């Protein structure tokens, strides 16, 4: 058994991949709880796709791809907010327009630089085993920033998430906190794109937190459970990908999905019973 667990760790790329996926799952677990409860899955998916424009541009220009992804994700989040506030189109529509536009820009750019195409496709579908030490540091630092900001503003973020009108009425800077949440979502997505890929980031945000929602009754418990479920999915997923020789990002997501359905099957009737007056 010990051999079974230790064998993959003889390789540096496996160590880095494992560490990176667990880190990313922890960050996603924290933000995912807000995403699930506030219905931000679509905007999360949009920010992930939008960041691809930044990844491609940064790749061509030879700068840090996390920086490019971050700039595009944040600009898209602000753009969605600005277009929606004008009130001419719904936020759904604004999201749809912006994310396909920026994603298409990314595709356009990589279609001109075909010699890099395989590398760039790693960002689309995830390639956690090619993560470098520098990538790992970037993920760790961004994760610490997210964790610190959520801890500092935890009570205010919870108040605004639960009851924005009353929060605003009692003097909380609701608008600023909503933008902070979007910015944190952008950072979180950027950390996750290499681990699971742009196309699947939203699953890592939503699925473990949805499982946690079924299991818990208070918000901080939900965050902790979501972090645990995410980390477990990452661990199991990486080992599965090693022994079955399958794509790591997809393996992580499928483990998370299986855990969700198992939890749903086990807790479904119980939760309904406990809700009865």
């Amino acid at each position: 058994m010990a051999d079974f667990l230790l064998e993959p760790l003889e390789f540096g790329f496996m160590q880095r991949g494992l560490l990176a996926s667990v880190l990313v799952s922890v960050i996603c677990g924290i933000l995912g709880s807000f995403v699930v409860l506030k219905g931000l899955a679509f905007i999360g998916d949009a920010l992930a796709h939008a960041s691809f424009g930044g990844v491609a541009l940064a790749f061509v220009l030879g700068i840090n791809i996390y920086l490019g992804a971050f700039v595009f994700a944040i600009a898209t989040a602000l753009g969605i907010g600005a277009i929606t506030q004008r009130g001419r189109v719904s936020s759904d529509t604004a999201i749809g327009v912006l994310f396909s536009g920026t994603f298409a820009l990314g595709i356009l750019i990589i279609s001109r630089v075909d010699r890099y195409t395989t590398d760039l496709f790693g960002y689309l579908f995830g390639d956690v085993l090619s993560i470098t030490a520098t990538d790992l540091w970037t993920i760790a630092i961004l994760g610490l920033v997210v964790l610190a900001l959520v801890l500092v503003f935890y009570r205010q973020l919870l108040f605004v998430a639960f009851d924005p009108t009353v929060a605003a009425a009692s003097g909380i800077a609701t608008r600023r906190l909503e933008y902070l949440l979007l910015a944190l979502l952008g950072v979180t997505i950027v950390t996750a794109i290499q681990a699971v890929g742009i196309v699947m980031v939203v699953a890592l945000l939503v699925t473990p937190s949805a499982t946690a929602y079924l299991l818990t009754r208070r918000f901080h418990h939900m965050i902790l459970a979501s972090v645990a479920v995410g980390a477990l999915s990452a661990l199991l997923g990486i080992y599965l990908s090693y022994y079955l020789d399958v794509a790591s990002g997809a393996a992580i997501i499928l483990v998370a999905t299986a855990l969700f359905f198992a939890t749903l099957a086990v807790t479904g009737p119980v939760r309904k019973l406990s809700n009865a007056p």
Partner: protein
Amino acid sequence: MEKAIEIRSLSVAYSRRPALEDVTLSVPKGAMVGIVGPNGGGKSTLVKAMLGLVPRLRGEVEVLGRPVDRRARRLVGYVPQREDVDWNFPVSAFDVVMMGRVPSMKLLRRPAHRDKELAWEALRTVGMEKFADTRIGEFSGGQQQRIFLARALAQEAEVLLLDEPVSGVDAPSQHEIFDLLRELQRTGKTVIVTTHDLSCVAERFDLALLLNRRIVAFGRPEEVFTPELLNETYQSHLMILKVGDRTVAIEDGRQGG
């Protein structure tokens, strides 16, 4: 006498559709005011204007002698309509009441003993201390309203604004909520409530405000609940009948804009 709320020539419009026109109003401290009027008559808008939540076209709003700034906001407790809240959120009754302390707490600080004590005291006042750990979605409508009221009390609000606190709440719980508001008024709070329940306002409130975009009348219920003024307020949405020496008002079920 000191004023809890002072409103001068207030007008509010939503994308050019007027919601409130030239409202001037002065609510004395310690009063219990029932705001009645047809749907779309601006009841909720007036409450939100007192909270500084709607943009004003013109006019001024003062709370306890101050413009609606951050300090004034802490002194005003707001209980929103039940439909405005996500009841599936995983928070306990105590979590919700503690939110009332958030505006006064410093970032990063753990809640002080005083914060927790205020939350418990508020839960005791509304009679929900036994259910502190229960998830908010598991309560009945009346219990949810009481917990939200406890949050406003934990905030140390002097003025309580409740928007339709008894809509969708069963009759016994409605009475409990109004009794509770009466008690809070006795402890010196100013209570302002929007409601559809005219008879309840007539029986239990000091002051009634008839509102249909502008103020039709403001005074003691027995003075302003006259067939003429009620007809003017509700126009075609209310049927006023005289039964013996009593005035009976029957509200039309149609939803106004």
